[in-house]
């Protein structure tokens, strides 16, 4: 069973993930824009607007700090923590070298204390964001099964990964691998795809408004 999870199933999940993400990105990039016959208000307003939106929408702006502080803090705690764990956790670096690249990638491996801090931040951020989703009167109305499934899958992946931290049991590693594979298969077809599309989406919105001389 473990051999199947770490062998054929891993490659199937990885293939679905890569093809799915590529397909979603291609669809986004080749999406037709409505004709805009108006003159650009600013020279190179589109590019400037895209850049401005990318920066501006990543931090509280427009006097919204008070309203967005909670999401700003918890969101960054979760995303930065997860990013660090995925790419720099020592077992992940070894896995990437062994199963994906086949050579030394030269990335630093997190020491254990740094792993713990990143994991604490990621878990705290994810739980706080999800509790907010469940209790906020507006947000809970906007949430559907995709949002809940995405959060739970991410949580399970993080949890099984941390439970296997001791690396003493192949069974715990297999649980983690299995949950990762489920996430890889689910991600391209869910809102979790925002991990890859958020920059394009923000840039496009910014470019559209930048051409009109205003970036919200």
């Amino acid at each position, binding site marked *: 069973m473990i051999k199947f999870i770490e062998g054929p199933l891993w490659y199937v999940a990885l293939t679905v993930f890569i093809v799915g993400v590529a397909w979603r990105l291609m669809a986004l990039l080749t999406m037709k824009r409505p004709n805009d016959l108006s003159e650009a208000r600013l020279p190179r307003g589109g590019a400037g607007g895209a850049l401005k939106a990318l920066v501006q929408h990543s931090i509280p702006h427009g006097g919204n700090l008070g309203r967005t502080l909670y999401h700003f803090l918890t969101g960054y705690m979760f995303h930065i923590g997860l990013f660090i764990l995925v790419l720099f956790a020592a077992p992940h670096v070894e896995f990437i070298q062994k199963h994906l690249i086949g050579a030394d990638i030269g990335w630093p491996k997190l020491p254990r204390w740094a792993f713990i801090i990143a994991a604490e931040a990621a878990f705290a951020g994810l739980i706080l964001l999800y509790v907010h989703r469940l*209790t906020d009167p507006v947000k809970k109305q906007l949430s559907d099964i995709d949002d809940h499934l995405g959060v739970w899958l991410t949580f399970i992946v993080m949890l099984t990964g941390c*439970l*296997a931290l*001791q690396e003493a*049991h192949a069974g715990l590693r297999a649980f983690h691998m299995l949950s990762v594979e489920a996430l890889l298969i689910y991600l391209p077809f869910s809102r979790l795809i925002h991990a890859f599309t958020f920059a394009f989406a923000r840039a496009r919105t910014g470019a559209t408004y930048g051409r009109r001389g205003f970036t919200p």
Partner: protein
Amino acid sequence: MSLIAVVLMVFVGLPHVTSATAQQMPPPQALKNEGIATPGGSVRPPVGAVNLPGSASSVRRPGDPAAGGSVPPPDHARGDQSISDEFWSRIRHGQRGDVVLHSPGNRVLIQSSGEDWRLLRNRQVARYGAMALLGVLAAIVLFYLLRGRIKIKGGRTGRVIPRFSLAQRITHWFAATLVVLLGISGLIILFGKSILLPVLGPQAFSLVASAAMQGHNLFGPLFLAAVLGLLVFFLKGNVPRAVDVSWFFKGGGLLGGHASAGKYNAGQKIWFLLTIVLGFAICVSGFVLLFPDALADRTQAQLANLAHGIAALIFIAAGLGHAYIGSLGMEGAFEAMSVGTVDENWAKEHHDLWYAEHKGEATTDYVRAEVSAGAAGDGLMRGVRP
């Protein structure tokens, strides 16, 4: 094991021995009688096994050329004297030695009080803890069977009052999530060996125990943030008042008659106090257990372990009652923490003094009440929002 070996090897003036040897070793005198080498002792063949001088012998006394010996005795040899008794006694009584690894706890090879701790934890704490948890569960079931769900006597009015802000509810559920994760993993650590091991077998239990320990250590520090959040967001209204005394004497209304209460009744105030006091005790002792090598000796870690377990067991037992009365046990209570509002009659029956202050806010517009509650709760937490 390697650490113990290192400690042994550098004990001044003491011969080398592995910890496994030390633990399994019969009394030195018995070993000597059997002709077995004891650490630091001399090799003495069994009686009658050695030929006396003059007889044909293949056994030569060391260092005695006349007897054919050619190897001089080591400088520390003491002939038929043995230091093994003294050696063992010193270790057994916590003799400190010099070590290569400079951690205070490493200087002691055998910490005898550790056995007392082990027995206390595995027998008293685990036994009485299990009894307390099962007792509380039995009491809840019995109460439910006898009393049933506490209904809103006057029925629902269809009018709701904002009660808890979004910040309060998020803090509550953040803490509750951690309590569940830490509670389950902690109970596995405490009771797993006696309950799960016989059921799962050693291999599966080893996996579960390893996962529980990792999870417990990981989520533990977050609990401190949750306790601090609870202190900040729930302190207002939880200060004792005179009315709490009469609430007690009336058993919260269970012993007959109406028991008046403000926003929080006396039972809730005690639960808040327990949460803060036990929560901090659990956090402090938990941090001590996360860094045992920073302690002066192992006794502190053992005391922290006992305090951690006892405080957590009391907290879980009380928490079971809190979870019951806040959900299945009382109609209308769960909404206070899920949507932030309560029915007008619920407020009148359970928190009449608080209701008197807020009855003007009762509305049939559920959505507006929920949004209003999210922003400022009942006004106590106005201006604090996530």
